[in-house]
């Protein structure tokens, strides 16, 4: 009776109890994903084309009467100085998106390379790099950012790179974990057997597969970077320019909130939608490629 295996029953249980099994079968990015991407696309297009579009100058005072609610002339109303909140939100998006993008790009390049090197070569190299990641993660992110921006300057470049440094460890850990997994797979082993150089294996064989989970993390990470920039702005330590954080911070005073809450709430809404879109898109990509195994 040794033929009797015990898997049959449990499979039955799995079918009847766990709808997740079924969900995993139908793999699709879904409508939600495309709505999210559409929103992000619209945002990027608006930001890029902003100078050409008939928006007010975000710094122009008395672009309308001060402290008015949304109207045809000023879609998001005006702030205490009569500046157009819509124009400010659009131009704020420029800084926020650029910061988010540069930060995550930096994290991908530096963290990704370090992580892949650690995962590929292992041993001493891995130990050193892993400890670096561990140390970086041991720092509360915003504090590290504070340290850098308070020590150096508050240009767009510094803020972006600072947040990029924060992205290094999470991205690097993911890249390392993914590389560890994939380096064992046949296609990599095969490349090794035919004598391919390490660099070639890393860039031609491993990079394409490691990029997939990293892409999902990049979308989520961009949201984190944008939020972090906003946090820095609240601490007066972000760019000396308009960003979403700066605008919201400008409009959050008790009197402003009482008399014209839209100054803060409108950009909050736009920001929320953007982060939501990034999170959602990232989550869908992650699920689509089923990269949960590689540990986030």
């Amino acid at each position: 009776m040794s033929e009797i295996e015990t898997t049959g029953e449990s499979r039955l249980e799995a079918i009847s109890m766990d709808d997740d099994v079924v969900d995993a079968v139908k793999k699709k990015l879904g409508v939600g994903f495309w709505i999210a991407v559409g929103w992000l696309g619209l945002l990027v297009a608006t930001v890029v084309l902003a100078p050409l579009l008939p928006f007010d100058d975000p710094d122009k005072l008395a672009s309308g009467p001060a402290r008015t609610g949304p109207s045809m002339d000023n879609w998001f109303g005006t702030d205490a100085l009569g500046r157009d909140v819509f124009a400010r939100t659009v131009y704020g998006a420029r800084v926020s998106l650029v910061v988010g993008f540069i930060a995550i790009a930096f994290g991908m390049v530096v963290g990704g390379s370090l992580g892949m090197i650690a995962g590929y070569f292992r041993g001493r190299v891995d130990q050193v790099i892993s400890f670096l990641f561990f140390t970086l993660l041991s720092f509360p992110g915003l504090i590290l950012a504070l340290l850098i921006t308070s020590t150096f300057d508050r240009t767009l470049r510094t803020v972006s790179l600072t947040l990029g440094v924060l992205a290094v460890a999470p991205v690097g850990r993911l890249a390392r974990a993914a590389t560890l997994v994939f380096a064992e797979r046949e296609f990599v082993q095969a490349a090794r057997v035919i004598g391919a150089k390490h660099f070639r294996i890393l860039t031609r064989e491993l990079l394409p597969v490691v990029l997939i989970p990293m892409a999902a993390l990049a979308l989520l990470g961009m949201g984190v970077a944008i939020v972090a920039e906003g946090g820095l702005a609240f601490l007066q330590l972000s760019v000396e320019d308009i960003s979403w954080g700066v605008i919201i911070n400008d409009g959050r005073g008790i009197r402003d909130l009482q008399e014209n809450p839209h100054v803060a709430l409108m950009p909050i809404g736009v920001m929320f939608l953007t982060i939501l879109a990034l999170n959602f898109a990232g989550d869908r990509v992650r699920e689509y490629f089923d990269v949960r195994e590689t540990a986030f």
Partner: protein
Amino acid sequence: MAEASAANTQLLVRDLTVRFPTTRGTVQAVNGVTFDLARGASLGIVGESGSGKSVTAKTLMNLLPRTAEVAGDVIFEGEDVRRLASEGREHFWGVKMTMVFQDPMTSLNPVKKCGEQIAETLRYHLKRDRKTALAEAEDLLAQVGIPEPGKRVDQYPHELSGGLRQRVVIAMALACEPSLLIADEPTTAVDVTVQKHLLDLLDKLREDRGMSMILITHDLGVARGRCDEIAVMYAGRLVERSAPETLFSDSRHPYTDALLRSIPRIDQPSHTRLEPIPGRPPELINPPEQCAYAPRCRFARSDCLESIPDISGVAGMHEFACFHPANTDRGREALAANLAQGCTVAGLEISGAGASS
């Protein structure tokens, strides 16, 4: 079982049917299962994985997932078990009727001490205070033959061996002195050397306490010496039921017959070839209207593919569900005809080797 002995009947299962709707279709896990269990008696339910034996047990224990569709009657000591379930009756399961699971490695909570887990049952159902409950737990551990029970109560499950853990599980199940114990493959996951000890223990406890037991197993050999009656299940149906001696000497259903041939027996000459059962267990989703065993059956004739045989025979003595039972003339005829053709109506190729007597 005859109506006359109804007073002595503890558990009555009538026409029990369990289905699980899934996105791929409805799984027909249990189909029209009927049996009785007398007070103090022990019933063995034998079958492969997916035969519905565990689902039957879980139905009795009210452990099915909410999506399950159940029909039929389950009467325990005069109470309608399915109604108790829908009413959310407390202090019934775990007190009157309880269950032991297959894998002692996983059926104990890893983050609670053994003693606490036993005491919990007593505290929950019988409202014992913590101290009394723990003392009783220690006593129970001694009863199930665990050495140094005083030390074990303070140990975590991972500190005990598989055999000891299963004893802890049994102690836990027995805490509230149930009148029916369902043991679902209680020895499958433990060492062969420990199996016999555990089965002996269950037997002894059953006799000492006048408790009845349903022993669920895939191993006919396990059920043989320890059950008053054996029920064989296949594809959610009861296919044969009788006293063990009858079953082993004079099996009727070709599946039982094949099972017996696939295990070594002491009364056979050594080096007798064991015959594996050809094919795989059937799909339980949308099965065709035919005998579920037909595709694997050496006796299958065209009538087997046309309708499902009902279980019949002398109630309480020997029942089976087959058109061409083994060890009968009808069966022998069917087999001879199939052998002559070289294959059954279901397309199973058979040869003379190891032919049925």
